[in-house]
């Protein structure tokens, strides 16, 4: 069943067309991985889905409803986001990062929020770091808190914007591990990532975005083994080479 559908989405900044008509749809429990060169509009695309950025033209449907008809705070409660730079609330502990949305947005009581936060921190393996501030956590731990923060809101879809790009190589594994668990548990995920191992094993669909357009889209094996476009082949080839 279709959860998210983009129809001819366009976005431009002043003199620059960033998204030039992007269309695709994904079902519940799908894991959609988007790859593309820097500046191709991947972050912009994700931000359009939770309306951190407003589109110029086209339409985006969440569960059949055009997102501009949904209250933006409501939409964001239903669509979680995980950032490249973590963006943890610097003045709140790991637990406090998770509870803020629960109390301020969902209206949970403090004890309920704490219980739920601790539960989700446990799921990402950080039960023992609940009282640590972001500055006291490693990059991998921060990103896992970021995932717990998004997850605890019980969203229908989570957007990941290069969640491992800011991490030291030895810390990437712990974050990808959590993401794999989520994928297997049926969380619907729209991920911008260049972790090709993750794309191969966890993605239901792989999309190659270049210059604001979907160049090619399909099952990951197909794009890796038999891409229709030369651009796809060379870009994915570069990425996989990097990984060796």
């Amino acid at each position: 069943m279709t959860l998210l559908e983009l129809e001819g989405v366009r976005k431009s900044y002043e003199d620059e067309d960033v998204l030039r008509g992007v269309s695709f749809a994904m079902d519940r429990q799908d894991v959609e991985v988007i790859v593309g060169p820097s500046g191709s509009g991947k972050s912009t695309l994700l931000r359009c889905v939770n309306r951190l950025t407003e589109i110029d033209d086209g339409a985006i449907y969440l569960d059949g409803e055009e997102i501009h008809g949904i209250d933006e705070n409501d939409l964001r409660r239903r669509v979680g986001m995980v950032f490249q730079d973590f963006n943890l609330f610097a003045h709140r502990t790991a637990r406090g990062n998770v509870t803020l949305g629960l109390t301020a947005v969902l209206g949970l009581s403090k004890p309920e929020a704490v219980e739920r936060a601790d539960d989700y921190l446990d799921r990402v393996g950080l039960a023992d770091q609940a009282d640590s501030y972001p500055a006291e956590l490693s990059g991998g731990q921060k990103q896992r808190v970021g995932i717990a923060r998004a997850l605890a809101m019980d969203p229908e879809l989570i957007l990941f914007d290069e969640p491992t790009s800011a991490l030291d190589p030895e810390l990437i594994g712990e974050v990808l591990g959590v993401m794999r668990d989520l994928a297997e548990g049926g969380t619907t995920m729209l991920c911008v990532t260049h972790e090709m191992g993750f794309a191969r094993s966890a993605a239901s669909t792989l999309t190659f975005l270049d210059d604001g357009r979907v160049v090619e889209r399909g099952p990951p094996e197909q794009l890796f083994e038999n891409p229709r476009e030369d651009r796809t082949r060379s870009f994915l080839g570069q990425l996989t080479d990097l990984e060796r």
Partner: protein
Amino acid sequence: MTDGETATPGSDPTETRGTTVGDLPGRRRLAVLAAGTVFWTWLLARWAYHNSLLDGLFTALGFPDLIRSERGVRQREGWIPAEPFGAAADAVGTVAAALGPAGVLVDWLRWVLDLAAFATTTAPALASGAFVTVYLTVLSMLFGLVIAVPLAVARVYGGRALRAVSLAYTELIRGTPLLAQLFFLYFGLPLASIAEDVGFTGQPPIPRAAAAVAIVGFTINSSAYQSEYIRSALQSVDPGQLTAARAVGLSKFQGIRYVVLPQGLRFAIPGWTNEFVYLIKYSSLAAFITVPDLFRQARNIGSETFQFTNIYVVVALFYLALVLTTAIAMGRLEDRVAIPGVGQSGPRE
């Protein structure tokens, strides 16, 4: 601070701290603390002893003589006798005279002892003035903060109109002399008589309508400066923080309230300390609209005794004590509310 050009606080919220007394090591720190304790014990006792607020309270309880506020400030007796200092000064004078030309080596001591004798006789009046200075400053800072936070938020996050209003207010206040603002409120507007009519002055703890006018004036003035410090502190909060808050579903207002302000206000403490220290000193302008603050007491004593050098040295020490106390207290506050990675503990990245 009176005329925007001499000082432009807000340009750098981190400039104050570094070498305040609060950071002194070991023995010197202890000496400062000891001196501070003695000064404040004495001052608080003085306030308790001659305070119209407490007097009213105890009189109501049946102890009319315990605390005396009805006596004029100048008639209040000191607790430290001046005679020993005077006698010692005379003795030093004799010794100096006996030493002949070499007497200059000890003569400075005579001046110090004379000053001490003078200080003990004038201290009661200055203590009462210090009370006024302290409550003028503290109340104005707090009321100013209440205005400054929304002003700063409007500047950084407001729409076009809000930004313009906030900017206009800030620039108008910062661009005109504080004394002119006070005169405008006191002589230009019938604020004093309104305050008198409302009747909340004349009663303790605000002895005169002029003090109420001064608080209004200082509140308005310091709110403009405080908002500049807070504005630049808010701007130093990573924009990703608000983005993350919004991405969780918080409204812009909630994001500012729960995420940006808690961080920004921590960053603003050093600048806020600056403004606090400025206001302690600039509150002396209240003397010109008849408020019996520390400076006005000193001025009155000066014109009665003609000991201008002495009185201004003594009153300077009072101001210095107040300023140092503030710097230390704010340093403590900053440490206390510090969070790893947010403010304090070394330069931020």
